[in-house]
């Protein structure tokens, strides 16, 4: 029926659609599509000088240089950590929290509101607060540890790390931990609400039927809740992985412009976007902007490929009604 209706006068529909889309498309073209194309072109310019716009021909050299760069590999690893460790962890925590919230009545709205607060907090303010929380001397975390007679932990410390691989690893793990905690805190908010509403939209009849059959709680979760929740899970996973791949502000707010503790010369906590910004910072050197553009394009490719992969796998395990 519907298809027939549409086929009768498609041309009429077309015109209206373009009118509706026009403002959005114009702005997207100017502020998104054009910059991306421009980035692609800049990325292959050789010795591009920002001030004069002069360059010496085209080359893929910047891409090769980046892929060989140790700092870029580090950036990829850290970004992967946020995307594939922090994001899933916060997803699981959010799911657990939502399940708990769904099992209670009192305070549910209140707690949901409370969990959402990090989402409406200014990123820079939140980063400042976290840096202070983990401050070795003035921080809350070490204060709490001191109640249990634990010595202050130098959370963000680079002492000796350039001379000892062991100390480096330990310092790195502490920094990853801080990033993990921050991501958990920041990411929980939106996901809890999405999962909670997903849970509430599950038809109660399924549960009642299961209870009559005497199915165990765990099996109810496994056989009914998780499959019915899978579209929401998929949505949350994709959006949070994309957000994670773009992470930058949090790292700078936590670890500073040098992306690591003082004494570290390896940009320990740099992310891919951080790598782009770092190259941009050097804009007066010939070629720097092209390098940044190339890195930006590599990131874009990574994001598109990962999203495609997630969509592909989602077809296999997401349960649509």
């Amino acid at each position, binding site marked *: 029926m519907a298809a027939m*209706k549409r086929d009768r006068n498609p041309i009429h529909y077309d015109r209206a659609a*373009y009118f509706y889309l026009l403002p*959005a498309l114009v702005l997207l073209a100017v*502020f998104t599509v054009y910059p991306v194309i421009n980035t692609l072109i800049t990325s292959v310019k050789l010795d591009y000088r920002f001030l004069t716009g002069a360059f010496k021909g085209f080359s893929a050299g910047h891409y090769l240089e980046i892929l060989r760069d140790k700092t870029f590999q580090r950036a990829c690893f850290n970004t992967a950590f946020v995307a594939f460790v922090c994001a899933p962890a916060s997803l699981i925590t959010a799911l657990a929290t939502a399940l708990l919230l769904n099992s209670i009545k009192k305070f549910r709205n209140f707690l949901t509101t409370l969990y959402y607060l990090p989402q409406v907090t200014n990123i820079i*303010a939140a980063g400042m607060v976290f840096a202070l929380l983990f401050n070795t001397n003035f921080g809350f975390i070490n*204060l709490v540890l*001191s109640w249990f007679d634990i010595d202050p932990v130098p959370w963000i410390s680079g002492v000796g790390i350039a001379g000892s691989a062991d100390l480096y690893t330990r310092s790195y793990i502490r920094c990853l931990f801080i990033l993990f905690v921050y991501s958990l805190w920041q990411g929980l908010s*939106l996901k809890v609400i999405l999962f909670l509403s997903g849970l509430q939209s599950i038809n109660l009849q399924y549960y009642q039927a299961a209870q009559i059959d005497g199915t165990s709680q765990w099996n109810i979760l496994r056989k009914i809740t998780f499959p019915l929740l899978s579209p929401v899970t998929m949505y949350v996973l994709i959006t949070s992985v994309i957000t994670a791949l773009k992470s930058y502000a949090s790292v700078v707010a936590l670890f500073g412009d040098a992306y690591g503790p003082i004494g570290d010369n390896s940009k320990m906590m740099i992310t891919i976007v951080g790598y782009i910004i770092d190259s941009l910072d050097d804009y007066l050197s010939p070629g720097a902007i092209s390098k940044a553009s190339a890195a930006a394009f590599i990131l874009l490719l990574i994001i598109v490929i990962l999203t495609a992969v997630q969509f592909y796998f989602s077809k296999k395990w997401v349960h649509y009604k």
Partner: protein
Amino acid sequence: MKKPLVKTVNYFLLAAAAVMVLIPFFWMLGTALKSEAEALHIPPTLLPKTYRFDNFAKVIQTEPLMRYFLNTLIVSAFVVLISTMITVLAAYAFARLEFKGKDFLFAVVLIAVMLPQEIMIITNFMTIAKLKWLNTFRALILPYCVNAFNIFLLRQTMKQIPEDLYIAARIDGLTNFKYLWKVVLPVAKPTILTTMLLSMIWIWDTYAWPNLVTTQDNLRLISNGLKNAFTTSTGNIQYELQMAAATLVTIPLILVFVLLRKYIFSGITRGGMKG
């Protein structure tokens, strides 16, 4: 028999999570109320010995924070207004209308969702500069007026409105615009409010762009004021003032959120359902 125990454990776990979420806010507010000496005391004090509300006054006096607030308010008001109109129209077209190139254009929107803003910033600066729009509110507002994610979110919501309703409306002779106005908008209201809040958060958090396109103090936005504030010229951080400023910046959005909470929650969930 087991029920009360399970319930207690549930509540306990939820309360623990709530405490975790609140700790940063607690530490922010606590430090904001400490004196300079107390903020630098080792080991730190859990609660301020004396509550120094002066810190807030000091922050407002030493930094033109109020000016930044006002600017942020002006910019977010315009962005919310314009971008909502643009988003609603575009989302409606993607959700309900058929036209050539729809898949392609929607793919463009999806890719735009994934792009980090940082990639675009240099080219966009040149565009704004060529338009001679530096140091204008236009430069602060226009690039934020299209938000691919909001288009995506709203399209998801609109798709959930039964198609039969649309067909019936067309048969009744309702134009697309009337249908959008009379039927779609009321149903999509929570999601629209959500996109509004998301736009507002976006403006509230934005840092790099306004810093680049404004060179005059009286056009700066709130994040710019916060980032470099209260670090002395030699780099010593005045923690108590920094935290007082962070508190002041955080409160308005929390207020807006708490007021609109009901709509926002249902808006987020509607947009998020169905892949």
